């Protein structure tokens, strides 16, 4: 894999020498200077991780800002972004880089130092991982980074097997930064590079959190943007944004919420283009656009949805929910203030987000139970309502949500329990989908082979070295509208089938 990919960056390099007018030497020097950068933030990562992993998505975004800033400092925040090539080195591929012989660079001494550091760090990590592996539930999602050395070890063992493609899902595999080794990123604001890293490592997860983080990064981009001479702010900003978006999409496929947010922003960008304001004013306006979008479409919508669902929750209800959704969390915590009810959090394998949900609900003082999706039928008898979050609502009324939601909806439907899907209208999408195969996202297949809570390594892993089992970890599934009683949006309770109407009237409202 490495050999194949090593050619790609080289080609890119050749092109870029001409493009930014730097000599090879200068470029190398720059690169080497930056090479150190990912190392330093890593150290910071470890320190900051507990904070970054903070449950509420809002804080997710805000803390990650700090992190981004740290990165930026290390990368000597450029005056003009476009002039500077930046290199992202994935943690996993660090060692590979060294082997690849990039050390031909000029500042050898400096490189050696870095290598030494890495070696030491790795040694420490191995010791760590040995200890941590012995612990039963050592690495919850919360602690991914502090314990991150152990999953990394897995990844190194299994790179080829994990690349094995399952034929039915061939179209879903795409070249991501994760499996491509190193590459050169040009014209991308450092905030977006950091963000991409957080997306691909699933540090920032959940439709809302990802969108909030994206919009925060977008604001940074607007703030730092310097219009190239003899160019128009809006046009050049748009092209710069496009570059950044392209980079982010390489890290992880965009969520519908993010696509919608970017589209909304671009509409305003083109509208602003025709006005004759000064650049500073335009920037100010654009930042306002982002702020208004965040407060209207995300926060106010969530509050409105929360109020509506609260009215439907009665005392002594048993509410079933699946996985972790920031919106459902907000609803339950808000409703808890004046209603007494029980929550059953159902967990699905893969990301094991339910634990995080459970943690926060229990912290809020809600009476909770926790069970795996296998026992959902058993729990459903006692339930009064099922609340589900959504990734997106599709034009045919189907709900795209975290893998497993469709099963919960099906079970609830067969028990005649009302299923409420809570979803802000900014996640509505014109796409039509009847199955979860045509369009989906693939997660890490190793997450299926490994049980990260098990004390011992999964027996599947030892098998996998010779004849690897095919494994697919789909991120989302599609719930047909028949199983959903109502969708709760900021516009009120709606049947699923009203999505096209909302999509039709929404542009008018804007």
């Amino acid at each position: 894999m490495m050999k194949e990919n090593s050619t790609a960056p080289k080609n890119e390099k050749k092109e870029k020498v001409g493009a930014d007018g730097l000599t090879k030497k200068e470029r190398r020097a720059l690169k080497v200077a930056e090479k150190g950068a990912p190392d330093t933030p890593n150290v910071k990562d470890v320190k900051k991780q507990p904070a970054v992993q903070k449950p509420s998505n809002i804080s997710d975004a805000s803390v990650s800002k700090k992190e981004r800033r740290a990165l930026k400092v290390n990368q000597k925040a450029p005056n003009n972004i476009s002039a500077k090539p930046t290199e992202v080195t994935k943690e996993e591929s660090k060692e590979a880089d060294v082997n690849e012989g990039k050390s031909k660079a000029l500042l050898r001494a400096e490189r050696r130092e870095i290598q030494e550091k890495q070696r030491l760090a790795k040694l420490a990590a191995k010791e760590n991982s040995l200890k941590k592996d012995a612990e039963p539930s050592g690495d919850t999602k919360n602690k991914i980074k502090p314990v991150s050395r152990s999953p990394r070890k897995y990844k190194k063992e299994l790179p080829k097997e994990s690349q094995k493609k399952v034929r039915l899902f061939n179209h879903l595999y795409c070249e991501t930064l994760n499996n491509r080794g190193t590459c050169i990123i040009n014209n991308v604001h450092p905030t977006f590079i950091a963000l991409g890293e957080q997306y691909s490592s699933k540090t920032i997860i959940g439709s809302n959190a990802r969108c909030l983080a994206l919009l925060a990064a977008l604001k940074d981009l607007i703030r730092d943007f310097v219009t190239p001479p003899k160019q128009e702010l809006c046009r050049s900003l748009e092209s710069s944004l496009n570059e950044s978006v392209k980079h982010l999409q390489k890290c992880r496929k965009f969520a519908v919420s993010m696509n919608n947010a970017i589209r909304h922003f671009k509409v305003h960008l083109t509208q602003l283009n025709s006005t004759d304001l000064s650049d500073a004013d335009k920037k100010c306006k654009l930042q306002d656009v982002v702020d208004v979008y965040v407060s209207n479409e995300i926060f106010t919508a969530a509050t409105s949805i929360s109020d509506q669902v609260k009215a439907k929750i009665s005392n002594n209800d048993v509410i079933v929910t699946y996985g972790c959704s920031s919106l459902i969390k907000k609803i339950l915590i808000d409703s808890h203030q004046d209603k007494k009810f029980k929550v059953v959090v159902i967990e699905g394998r893969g990301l094991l987000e339910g634990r995080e949900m459970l943690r926060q609900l229990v912290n809020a003082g809600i009476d909770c139970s926790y069970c795996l999706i296998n026992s959902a039928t058993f729990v459903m008898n006692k339930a009064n309502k099922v609340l589900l979050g959504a990734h997106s609502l599709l034009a045919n009324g189907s709900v795209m949500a975290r893998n497993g939601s469709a099963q919960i909806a099906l079970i609830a439907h067969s028990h005649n329990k009302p299923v409420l899907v809570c979803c802000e209208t900014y996640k509505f999408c014109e796409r039509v989908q009847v199955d979860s195969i045509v369009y989906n996202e693939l997660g890490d297949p190793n997450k299926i082979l490994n049980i990260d809570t098990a004390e011992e390594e999964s027996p599947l892993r030892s098998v996998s070295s010779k004849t690897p089992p095919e494994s697919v970890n789909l991120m989302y599934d599609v719930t047909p509208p028949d199983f959903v009683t109502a969708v709760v949006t900021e516009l009120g309770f709606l049947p699923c089938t009203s999505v096209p109407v909302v999509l039709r009237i929404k542009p008018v409202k804007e």
Partner: protein
Amino acid sequence: MDEAEIRATFSKIIKTEDVSPGIAAIKTLMQMVKVSDVTTLQELRKTMTIATDYMRDMDYPAASISSSSELLLRFISLASLDGVAFSECKRIMIDRGQMFLKKLLDGRGKIAKSASKFILDGSRILTHSRSRGVLYALKEAMGQDKKFEVFVTHSAPDNSGELMKKELDKAGIPSTLILDSAIGYIMETIDFVMVGAEGVAESGGIVNKIGTFTIAMCAKEMKKPFYVMAESFKFSRLFPLGQSDLPLDYKYTSSVRKNMILDKEDPLVDYTPPNYITLLITDIGILTPSGVSDELIKLYI
């Protein structure tokens, strides 16, 4: 107008004219707007809401009262009222109100016309309780020289089915009164079910006289079409998740609501979920249940 006056006007309208509580509520509100001496739109809106609450609190079905009042408020305040004197404003609003009322009264004819297409020669129709919409549709079909037979439930507790039977007899439509408990028995012999509605929920389901849900379930099981006749002023932004989720003032009259133990009381209405309904025949067209929400979204957002 004070509370007593509003109630008196409302019950007078219901008693003297043969209209549904929804229309009566609109007429009462219109009268109130005419005589009221408030000087701002804000106040007018407030007094109208309070008046609606008074009417809901009487011993009439509340479902259509609340939805029609809300629609009226929406309709008359939609006019661009900026920069005109309040007296002028009031005149515009009263005009619009009259227009709204006229539209509603015309609606019934439209429903009857489209519903009569569903009635064929030799049809056997089951209906529940007394509904003006259904009655008009049946009369319309009779006027078209169609031969059909109607089965009417007694419809406990107020036996309003008997009144329906009398009216059908007067119109010369052959009808049979059946027991509420005979719904299952009769279901295999009928062609379709036709009922009215007190209110139409956003889900596309209906709120109607108790027993409607039972009929709908039987009809679904026996695979008979279930048609609902409802004027669009009965559409409300309500989304019941089940029977227990219906507002209390829909289910019980105000005198019953004063009792503490409501569990022991018989509810007046039930909620029929949209998946039991084949079509809703309304003055804005023949809709599938999911179409109701589309119309409501267009109306309110």
